[in-house]
């Protein structure tokens, strides 16, 4: 087999997560494709944890629906993840000997392995995760040399003896595998390729910011976005920039706006609760036309909701936050690599068009680690439109222009002095309560939005060229659609997918063309109330009779098989129509 999913589950000290890391790192170094996710119980330390690694020789786009090889150090800890971890039909299960599997699992091929005892024997009782890694690698044919290097790297800062003992334990696990006898599961096969980078969506976002020239970040920690703050806190100072952890999210976006006003590319990042708090200041950035990038990593909502789980339910807040008519741009990313590109696009648009731009990610993208080709982390960088000498003759900050974009001076620039505000204002920035000024300035700001819509048409389009069923989805659902089409085999030839990357303004024209080319439409999203569907209804012309919606609450990722199932009745219905 060329596509394998492993899961390790245990208590805090069991090293389930480390085992996943080692396998992932090793396989990435061989040029394989990896998607690795983790899950934890509510306890911060010492609670249950699970690590799931999907390895494939071919590009992959989402977690897989089911696990092929499961390692469980304790079934009690497994309990928390029962609903999240589905086992493939042919799955094999390794568990601590004596801790017998629950009934639902026992029907699979299960091996009781004395992990703790073997590890103790081999010299390090705590290293049962390394032992399990050896066992799995040996049994499935994973690249042993690469895993050995990965182990060595992992303990590089420890004493050589530690490395040695871990390698010994790993080998002990490999040896143990030989004694299992032939398995129903095929061996994993692969070709070696150029090593790939392995990073999380949050890290890719942060890299995108650095690439775009961001040199100021202000933020307040919040799951699942905090890694962006932490990464930039480490790297910005090296690059001559600064990270500021503020007292709250209002201050975070406030400082971001201030830094941008002063001429530095700036960003903040948060999750739903923080985005809600930023609503008022988003409006300020919009009316004062200050480039402001806000990354929002969605988690389960509403309110504090499910902080460690994924959902696509901050769409409304991203698109509509703030009172008044407040144009802004919203860009979504659908996987780790796109987190990089979406962030650079966000800066480009923010800077050129002087908008607040929201990048929507979600927990499943932000916190999974995925392989990325280094060469693909390139993206054109665009800069602010500064006033030229002619503009500075009698400079007017908000002078009207055909596309609504007025050159923006920055403090320090002689001749560029202006006073701005969040009140409605005239071309010079002076407060005005005049209806005429208000109408003209609303128009100016929405003209910019039109200009963005004309210039940027960011979307994914894949699957059938003339689809019977057209699927419209966004963000992390896009990867699941890729997987679903793959799963469907021939039937996939009847399904096409359109997924806007730019959510506001939508690439309306392209989307409408797509819609009009399909017999029926299925909207897919991870939101109980179907926010995306409602939003689409307001923006494009969906055929009411021929549109259906597959949406549900988050908390559990969308599965490819769910989508395949949701598509079935539509495909049948269409066929019946053809027959009729």
């Amino acid at each position: 087999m060329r596509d394998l999913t492993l899961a390790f589950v245990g208590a805090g000290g069991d090293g389930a997560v480390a085992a996943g890391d080692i396998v992932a790192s090793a396989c990435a170094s061989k040029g394989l494709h990896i998607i690795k996710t983790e899950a934890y119980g509510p306890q911060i330390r010492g609670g249950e944890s699970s690590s799931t690694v999907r390895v494939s020789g071919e590009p992959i786009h989402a977690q897989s629906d089911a696990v092929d090889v499961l390692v469980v150090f304790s079934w009690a800890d497994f309990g928390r993840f029962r609903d999240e971890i589905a086992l493939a039909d042919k799955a094999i299960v390794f568990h601590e000997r004596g801790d017998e599997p629950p009934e639902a699992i026992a029907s699979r091929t299960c091996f009781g392995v004395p992990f703790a005892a073997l590890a103790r024997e081999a010299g390090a009782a705590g290293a049962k995760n390394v032992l399990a890694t050896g066992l799995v690698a040996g049994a499935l044919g994973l690249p042993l040399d690469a895993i050995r290097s990965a182990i060595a790297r992992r303990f590089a800062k420890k004493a050589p003896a530690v490395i040695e003992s871990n390698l010994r334990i790993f080998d002990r696990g490999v040896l143990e595998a030989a004694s299992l006898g032939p398995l129903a599961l095929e061996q994993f096969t692969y070709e070696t390729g150029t090593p790939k980078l392995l990073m999380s969506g949050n890290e890719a976002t942060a890299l995108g910011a650095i690439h775009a020239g961001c040199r100021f970040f202000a933020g307040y920690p919040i799951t699942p976005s905090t890694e962006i703050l932490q990464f930039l806190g480490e790297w910005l100072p090296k690059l001559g920039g600064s990270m500021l952890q503020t007292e709250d999210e209002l201050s975070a976006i406030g400082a971001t706006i201030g830094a941008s006003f002063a001429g530095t590319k700036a960003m903040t990042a948060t999750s739903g609760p923080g985005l809600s708090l930023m609503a008022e200041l988003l409006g300020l950035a919009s009316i004062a036309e200050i480039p402001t990038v806000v990354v929002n990593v969605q988690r389960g909502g509403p309110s504090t909701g499910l902080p460690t789980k994924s959902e696509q339910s901050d769409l409304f807040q991203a698109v509509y936050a703030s009172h008044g008519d407040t144009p802004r741009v919203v860009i979504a990313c659908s996987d780790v690599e796109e987190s990089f590109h979406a962030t650079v696009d966000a800066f480009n648009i923010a800077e050129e068009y002087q908008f607040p731009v929201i990048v929507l990610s979600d927990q499943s993208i932000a916190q999974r680690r995925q392989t990325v080709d280094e060469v693909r982390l390139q993206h054109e960088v665009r800069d602010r439109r500064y006033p030229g000498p002619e503009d500075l003759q009698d400079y007017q900050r908000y002078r009207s222009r055909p596309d609504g974009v007025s050159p923006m001076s920055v403090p320090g620039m002689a001749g560029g002095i202006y006073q701005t505000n969040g009140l409605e204002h005239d071309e010079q920035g002076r407060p005005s309560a005049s209806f005429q000024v208000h109408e003209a300035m609303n128009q100016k700001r929405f003209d910019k939005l039109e200009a963005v819509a004309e210039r940027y048409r960011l979307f994914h389009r894949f699957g059938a060229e003339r689809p019977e069923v057209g699927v419209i989805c966004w963000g992390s659902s896009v990867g699941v659609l890729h997987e679903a089409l793959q799963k469907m085999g021939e039937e996939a030839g009847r399904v096409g997918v359109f997924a806007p990357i730019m959510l506001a303004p939508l690439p309306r024209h392209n989307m409408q063309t797509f819609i009009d080319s399909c017999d029926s439409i299925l909207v897919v999203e991870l939101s109980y109330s179907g926010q995306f569907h409602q939003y689409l209804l307001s923006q494009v012309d969906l055929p009411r009779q021929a549109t259906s919606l597959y949406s549900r609450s988050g908390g559990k990722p969308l599965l490819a098989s769910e989508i395949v199932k949701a598509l079935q009745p539509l495909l049948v219905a269409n066929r019946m129509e053809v027959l009729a």
Partner: protein
Amino acid sequence: MSSAPHTVNDYKTDLKPVWCPGCGDFGVLNSVYRALADLQREPHETVVVSGIGCSSRLPGYVATYGFNSLHGRALPIATGVKVAAPNLTVLAVGGDGDGIAIGGNHFMHAARRNVDITYLMMDNEIYGLTKGQAAPTTPSGDRTKSTTYGNPEQAVDPCALAISFGSTWVGRGFSGDVKGTTELMKLAILHHGFAFLNLISPCVTWRGDDQFKALRAKLRAVPEGHDRTDRAAALRLTSEDDHLTAGVLFEEQRTTLVEELMEIRGRAGAGLARPTRGEILRSFAPA
């Protein structure tokens, strides 16, 4: 930089203040003009940030870069400006409601971080712009539009708060005394760190025409011999016996936020060249 010295008029925009006749904020504005001119701050290298309120209209009248932002948010924005462009002279200005009610938390944290800006609070003991509701500075018991039966809350002393928050320069001036206030403002701007200047700036519309007289009567000068580096003494002094003490109350030297961030850059870079793209990406390479 231009070489001709700047006059007070160079700092004036052609916008006519919307303040009521007799409002204390006129005096503060005049002091701002004079202080900037006396210190010869380049208009284009100066930024005045405010929140929302009558007083927060001030940046519109000062011919430097200016930002009349949102109610309560002047300090986060000013912090962003200063960190992004440390060479600028940054003034944050606003009302007592703006700075102590809705913006109180930012006040605390900007002071604690010792952001190198000057914060001018026009204290009129009321919400002026919204037409006369109680502010955190409104004396207890006073009737206002929102306290029909008298203000049930204890009033705060902005200077005492500023000291407790960790401001490294704290002073008080009176808008009726443009000259004295100008001098204080200059000291505040020259101070290296977070300088808080409480400006008693009467609202003649909602607090009454007699406010200039009434507040002037409460004022007294910092006594000779006050050790302004003595925090406890400053705290004791600021509003003892129902008096308001004008002058420099407190001053200390402490590393500023920008200095800290610069040091961090130094430590992060360890004197080396900036990391290249390749170096950054290498941290994600599995091999």
